[in-house]
């Protein structure tokens, strides 16, 4: 017997693979699956949200309320009372509502409003600061009431929880993979969100018309510089939760024209004094 030394063979232990092709195939394939799963979740949540009892919503609100309280500026009771009245006036035009609405003002340097479970509407101080008329603010509040009407707040919450659960169940709690497929979920979710925003806009306009017999001032909110200028409308539309402003305004105008509602009319003065809000600070 004689030893027969040879060089190791490259081909035995290595599978010839084009790595970029492999990465593309796996990423595209898994993204399609992820979008499918997220779409199914979103559809299921949309079906289930309307049948969740208000009692459960109220329990969620209690849990959230403690956290919200930390951001409520001191000395804003007067503003909250006036916002509550305005919401009450608008909600009167929604006779079969089951919610008992209340408003909380939180300190934030971006104009925004959120609908939280149980009838809680969060309004940021910056939104009150920039509102130039009661009508403008009424549209934003009416829009939030629209979310309650369609129970969007539960849908968003349900989707968020189930998306996280879906990612966690395949071991993607955090990290770049979670970012990748989380983004698929986020974009899928935002497609649903944009549809919901359109519906909420229409509901808000309807309440405004019922309250003021005009929808004047409803588009004023979009005329403030909200820090999205410079972005292409398509990108803003794609990346944002809300439809891009131009698209959104056009859709609203089309709807108003379709309904035959007047867009002009007298605007009510802003009932909220700027100084009252701007002097408020978040307690340390």
């Amino acid at each position, binding site marked *: 017997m004689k030893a027969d030394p040879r060089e190791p063979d490259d081909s035995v232990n290595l599978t010839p693979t084009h790595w970029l092709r492999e990465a593309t195939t796996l990423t595209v394939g898994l993204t399609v699956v992820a979008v499918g799963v997220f779409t199914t979740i979103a559809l299921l949540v949309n079906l289930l949200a309307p049948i969740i009892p208000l009692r459960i919503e109220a329990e969620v609100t209690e849990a959230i309320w403690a956290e919200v309280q930390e951001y409520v500026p001191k000395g804003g009771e007067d503003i909250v009372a006036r916002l509550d009245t305005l919401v009450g006036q608008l909600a009167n035009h929604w006779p079969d509502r089951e919610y008992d609405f209340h408003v909380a003002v939180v300190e934030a340097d971006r104009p925004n409003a959120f609908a939280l479970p149980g009838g809680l509407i969060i309004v940021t101080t910056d939104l009150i600061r920039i509102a130039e008329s009661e009508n403008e603010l009424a549209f934003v509040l009416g829009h939030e009431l629209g979310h309650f009407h369609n129970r969007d707040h539960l849908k968003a919450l349900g989707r968020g929880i189930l998306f996280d659960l879906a990612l966690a169940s395949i071991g993607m709690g955090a990290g770049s993979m979670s970012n990748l497929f989380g*983004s698929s979920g986020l974009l899928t979710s935002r497609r649903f969100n944009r549809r919901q925003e359109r519906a909420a806009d229409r509901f808000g306009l309807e309440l405004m018309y019922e309250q003021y017999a005009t929808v004047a001032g409803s588009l004023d909110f979009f005329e403030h510089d909200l820090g999205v200028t410079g972005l292409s409308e398509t990108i803003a539309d794609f990346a944002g939760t809300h439809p891009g402003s131009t698209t959104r305004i056009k859709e609203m105008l089309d709807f108003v024209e379709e309904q035959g509602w007047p867009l002009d009319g007298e605007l009510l003065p802003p009932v909220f004094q700027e100084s009252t809000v701007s002097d408020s600070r978040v307690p340390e």
Partner: protein
Amino acid sequence: MDQLIILGFPLFLLLLTYFIGRHLESNHYKSIREREAATKDMVAINFPRFPFDVEIERAGMVMGSVVVSHDHFKRFLAQLRIIVGGRIKSYEPLLDRARREAVLRMKEQALARGHNTVVNIRLETSRLANSRRGGKGTAGVEMLAYGTALTVREGL
């Protein structure tokens, strides 16, 4: 825009690590092949003992060890593959390089000590834990090749 940055930056990093990783791997394979050609005449076998009589002048243990890590791109591919199962092809070159490099280092040590044969070769591997994710992540692998180096009169 945020989404584009969130998706775009990792994608840029992936592509960057793909090209860097490919360059390093290609250089390593070039070095491996050249050194394998240079040491190909050295007998390296894993018989525990010779099946025939040979005259041995000297003997000693030799070891070759290498620690290697995968690049971010290959790790990403492996993570994708783990979701659906199947062969994790992206790790094959990594482990292939590790095995061949460890054996080469062992043979080079034997040659440096004046031996002409290595017998009873064994390969062992261990995972180096990463401090991230509570030690559950893999920083890299160590491949250890060891054997008994012999100086056999007249060769095999």
